[in-house]
């Protein structure tokens, strides 16, 4: 495997009327080609803005931290994403090396342009294909993602397709430019479980076939368990725990990760009580000091967690957690 992307110290703030708010705080991760990383957390935890930062797709009032460094390793050499300024320069990354699938497939297609024309348009922007060739490639991709009668679907509009079909078309479109990295932002949340299972299977097949990296954003740990190789759990813009998916789901370390797992209904034990994570995620305007999770944490250490930001502790070579309950001494003991 070869390194695909390195994200170091990603910090992102937004200037709003109510003041400057921190959406992402010192997030670092990396991804290899052919690897699937899950990004999990509640609404408001900063998953989507983190992913969008990789293409600098956030709104105009976004301010990136000075130490933020995002390096995309492409065949032609590394690209410093933060250094790209004009929209023209960004084309290499946006839709070129990185494609994105959004949550709401209805809202992400233009309603008055046929699916096919939208696919052809982006192929013409990002590749030097002729219109005829782009059309062939698009129909082939539609067929590849399991849309029957692809040449007929090609000239249809988004409203003529069912939810599952639209999401398949979205995937076909995102993959037709052969991106190195695919960002999937809650791609199955709006779908029925049966269709979700189909889409997950499709994405697994495509990773195997195209060998791209995927960042899979979701709040559903079951979906993560089924798709991801590694996972990062986010809360209020910080990664609180990250590691291989087996380790994080089987032996979660951070109280927040444990909380998310305890809140899930388990089919094999119907009598187990559902234990919610107490309270609500705080408003970004009232960001807690110290550990960001201290206001909802049932095992917070009085005085310490409110004041002191926990650093990452390695539980083993690949699994790490940011919590005061874990120190170098307690882990090795």
């Amino acid at each position, binding site marked *: 495997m070869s390194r695909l992307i390195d994200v170091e110290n990603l910090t992102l703030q937004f200037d709003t009327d109510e003041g400057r708010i921190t959406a992402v705080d010192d997030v670092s991760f990396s991804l290899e080609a052919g690897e699937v990383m899950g990004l999990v957390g*509640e609404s408001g935890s900063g998953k989507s803005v983190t992913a969008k930062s990789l293409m600098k797709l956030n709104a105009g009032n976004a301010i990136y931290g000075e130490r933020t460094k995002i390096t995309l390793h492409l065949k032609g050499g590394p690209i410093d994403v933060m250094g790209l300024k004009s929209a023209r320069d960004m084309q290499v990354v946006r839709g070129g090396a990185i494609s994105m699938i959004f949550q709401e497939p209805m809202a992400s297609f233009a309603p008055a342009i046929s699916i096919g024309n939208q696919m052809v348009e982006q192929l013409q922007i990002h590749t030097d294909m002729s219109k005829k060739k782009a059309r062939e490639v698009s129909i082939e991709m539609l067929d590849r993602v399991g849309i029957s009668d692809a040449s007929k679907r090609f000239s249809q509009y988004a409203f003529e397709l069912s939810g599952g079909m639209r999401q398949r078309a979205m995937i076909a479109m995102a993959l037709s430019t052969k991106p190195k990295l695919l960002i999937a932002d809650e791609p199955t949340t709006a779908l029925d479980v*049966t*269709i979700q*299972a189909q889409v997950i299977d499709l994405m697994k097949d495509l990773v195997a076939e195209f060998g791209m990296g995927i960042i899979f954003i979701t709040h559903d*740990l079951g979906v993560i368990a*089924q798709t991801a190789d590694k996972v990062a759990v986010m809360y209020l813009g910080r990664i609180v725990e990250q590691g291989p998916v*087996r380790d994080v*789901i089987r032996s979660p370390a951070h109280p927040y990760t444990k909380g998310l797992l305890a809140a899930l209904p388990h089919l094999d034990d119907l009598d187990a009580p559902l234990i*919610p994570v107490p309270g609500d995620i705080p408003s970004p305007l009232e960001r807690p000091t110290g550990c960001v999770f201290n206001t909802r944490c049932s095992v917070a250490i009085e005085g310490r967690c409110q004041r002191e930001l926990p650093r990452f502790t390695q539980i083993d070579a690949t699994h790490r957690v940011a919590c005061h309950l874990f120190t170098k001494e307690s882990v090795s003991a």
Partner: protein
Amino acid sequence: MTETPLISTKGLSVHYPLRGTLIGPKPVVRAVENVSIDIAPGSFFGLVGESGSGKTTFGRALLRAAPITRGDVTYDDGEVRYDLPKLEGRELKEYRSRAQLIFQDPYAALSPRMTVRDIIAEPLEVMGLTNSREETDERVREIAAKCRLNLEHLRRFPHAFSGGQRQRISIARALVSRPRFVVADESVAALDVSIQADVLNLLKSIQQEMGLTFLFISHDLSVVAHICDNVAVMYLGRLMETAPTRELFSAPRHPYTQALLSAIPSLDPEDRRGGQKLLGEIPSPTNPPPGCKFQTRCPFAQDRCRKEEPELAHIGKGHNVSCHRWEELAAEKVLA
């Protein structure tokens, strides 16, 4: 069950007319067709199925918010007994205070221009259930406390609240008229898992405290498994299977139920089994397949299934299934 059911439907159908041709019979969409269920008082009755299966329409028909085309529906809470299709005028208004609805999207269901107090008080005012403002305030405070909303919350507007808090406001509004029967339509689908557990626990505790009966509509089988006593599975407007929750999850008899169960993503990263994945999508209700409605996606469909629609058969312990081949499949242990 010897107890009188709170809600009992016999052959309930809801049809919507389509724009037809001038000659011949007018085409209709059979959104709900021939559904018979009993909901025992004080129970949590789950209704599951994919989008387009008719769950919401069925729930609304029980509230007289969708037209009942055919069939009997009775409501009997011990004090009053209503024949729902025939209800009108004052009695219908009276029924509305006894049967309420909690919506799916807590962001769309609350008026942004009303304070939380006014939102919760509105049903009381509309139905004229209280005689004075003091009494209204009293009722609002009482139900708000049950839903863990404090006095400070009542003065604010919905935009100041998170999804979970908004859903608690919706619940308070539905319960303020002291209903006996509540339809919760995908009430936790829009919430994060951490908050979802909180709202489910709240519904359960309120149900026990107030002796409510719930029809809990959801596409999420794991949520239904946790909260419901009985479950009905719908597909294209038809009932596929009904059973007590434990029975349904330990011995599903209908291939569709089995497929829904195996589609739930397992939390075990080692268990990335293919399972029995359902292919294709739910057909359009304007053009349903002949015979068994599930035959187009059923891996076990035979000629008979393509011609003849199965009847709902009673197979014991409150378990009913609508499949020609359930006995064979159970004997061959194809469905685990």
